[in-house]
């Protein structure tokens, strides 16, 4: 009948995985080698050699670099995903995107330039012939 109001929400973290949950703010140069999950606030820069998941409640004011990324929250800054970037319906991106492959769900908001292709090496360095420009 009476449910516990102070319910603990503890995601099972894999070894080396970083979780920035709601209620926490990170400022500065955040670099990681393992997977990163963000549901909280980040300002500065985010970089990981593995996958990055940006949840619906996340507010990111930073340049983001990852091997692959799934975005459901708000990102103000450039996104660079070497392999794959997935923008979910709830995502808001204000910044340029450079990625190998992209998937954009209906409802996703992107305000910036999208560059993509196999030859992508760095956020702003190399542009591929198949450069697309998209502003919604």
């Amino acid at each position, binding site marked *: 009948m009476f449910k516990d109001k102070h319910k603990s929400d503890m995601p099972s973290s894999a070894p080396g995985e970083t979780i*920035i*949950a709601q*209620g926490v703010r990170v400022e500065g140069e955040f670099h990681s080698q393992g997977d990163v999950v963000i549901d909280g606030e980040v300002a500065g820069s985010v970089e990981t050699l593995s996958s990055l998941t940006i949840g619906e409640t996340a507010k990111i004011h930073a340049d983001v670099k990852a091997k692959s990324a799934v975005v459901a929250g708000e990102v103000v800054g450039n996104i660079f995903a070497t392999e794959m970037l997935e923008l979910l319906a709830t995502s808001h991106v204000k910044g340029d995107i450079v990625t190998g492959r992209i998937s954009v769900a209906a409802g996703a908001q992107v305000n910036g330039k999208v560059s993509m292709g196999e030859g992508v090496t760095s956020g702003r360095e190399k542009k591929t012939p198949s450069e697309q420009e998209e502003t919604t």
Partner: protein
Amino acid sequence: MYCYLYDDYIQENKRFERELLKIENRLTDLGIAGKVSRLALFRNAEEMIRDEIQRGVSTIVVVGNDETMRKVIDVVADNEVVLGIIPIGPNNELARMMGIPQGEAACDVLSARRVEKIDVGIVNGRRFVTGLTMPNFHAEITCEDKFRVTSVARQAELEVRNLADVTDPRDGRFEAVIRAAVKKGWGIFGRTSFKESVFPLRSMAIRSEKPISLFVDGEEMRSTRFDIGIEPLLLKVITGKARVF
């Protein structure tokens, strides 16, 4: 050569007499009996162990609990001897995580001598094995001198884990875990849930304007700044098959 260090609460309590006798018999049967040193109120554990090491002891076995382990960790880690435990009575979380059963059964695990090197955490020059807790966390953390972490929730707690059920104490890192209370909904209909942030780190610093309390392996420290680091694979411990790492 083994040295068995009996904590004073065991010697004072009659209910452990029979168990101690069984342990001593089993150790003799297994051929690993050794010198017995007894801790007492005005006897310095570190000094006793240093003397035994000079006499050629290579394995220190604590007969006691987590509190007894805490008394010897510094000197054992500095002298590169192997540390074992025969847990007796309550407050034996460390032994459980190392896979050592209570009482007489621990003797067989000691005899099997499965030695693992584990990381040791350090806070303001003081070593710890399991972890630290800060129940009322309203400070700023600087992680590896690169980024800062703060809690924006009204209520939060911090835990630093080295040896725990979900961490590997051999990876050269500790985990800083922040549990922040996040409320969803309005007024009396709102529900509070704790969201857990996890940061695997090698070093971190906690700063606060007012003195704050930090519990090191259960013991309180109070300061405005705490510098936390890790000493990789420093401590050699005897573990059982049931260990959590």
